[in-house]
């Protein structure tokens, strides 16, 4: 079982054992693949003005398609209830957001190499962001839509009693939530 993250003389430290690290690595990887898939939509046609290719900007006439997968939509939500504002924001910022998220998730994957994890504040925050992205994706698969759903999922804590794939997913979600919560508490302590 993992040990809670704590803030102390050596920074923010915690322990995650091999089976949990393997699981987390796979989860980070799943989210990276979803984001990489979406990044392909951003490819500009080859015959476009080279200025766009150079700057990575998208021409105004080329809004990005809506995000169809609801789990991906949790990671890349609309920036406004106004569809015109939302489309423009997506066109101008989504590529950066994808790059940032993939970077955080890769960094988190690399952390999963050793039992003991030692973090500075900056790394700890990016690790918390990566864990949060995993939770967002899992929550969509678990159909957590309101506080009641969240409460139902949070009751699945005993691995010995897990019988269905959904219960297993709930157990994984609760593990990731627990790690994130202890990490945030350590970050809060470090903030003082």
């Amino acid at each position, binding site marked *: 079982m993992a040990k809670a993250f704590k803030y102390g003389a050596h920074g923010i430290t915690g322990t995650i054992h091999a089976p949990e690290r393997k699981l987390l690595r796979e989860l980070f990887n799943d989210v990276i693949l979803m984001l990489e898939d979406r990044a392909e939509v951003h490819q500009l046609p080859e015959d476009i003005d080279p200025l766009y290719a150079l700057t990575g900007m998208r021409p105004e006439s080329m809004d990005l398609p809506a995000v169809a997968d609801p789990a991906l939509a*949790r*990671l*890349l*939500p*609309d*920036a*406004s*209830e*106004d569809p015109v*504002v939302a489309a423009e*924001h997506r066109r*101008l*910022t989504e590529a*950066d*957001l994808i790059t*940032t*998220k993939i970077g955080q998730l890769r960094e988190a994957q690399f952390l999963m190499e050793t039992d003991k994890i030692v973090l500075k504040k900056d790394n700890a*925050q990016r690790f*918390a*962001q990566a864990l*949060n*992205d995993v*939770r*967002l994706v899992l*929550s969509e698969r678990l159909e*957590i*839509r*309101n*506080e009641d*759903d*969240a409460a139902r999922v949070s009751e699945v804590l005993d691995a010995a009693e897990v019988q269905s794939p959904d219960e297993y997913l709930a157990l994984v979600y609760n593990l990731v*939530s627990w790690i*994130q*919560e202890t990490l*945030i*508490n350590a*970050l*809060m302590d470090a*903030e003082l």
Partner: protein
Amino acid sequence: MTAMPDVLPEIETVATNEKPWRLIVWNDPVNLMSYVSYVFRSYFGFSKEKAEQLMLQVHHDGFCMVRSGSREAIESDVQAMHGFGLNATMTQGA
């Protein structure tokens, strides 16, 4: 040494009546309360008390207007909130 020209070019100022944009953070059943509070503290530099109060407002009212400003400023806030995985939107004040 060079002297400054006697006549400085006139600086054109454009009065803007554009209404300020607002950053709204929405409640969702996934993001941990401690995490939302942490994000408010670390990204906006709010005090612990203010961050906690805004987080509770999101939790109880379903949303909270975190701050307002120019379109550019609020756009980059929204992007940062999405980076943290918070559900945030921007809207222009009435």
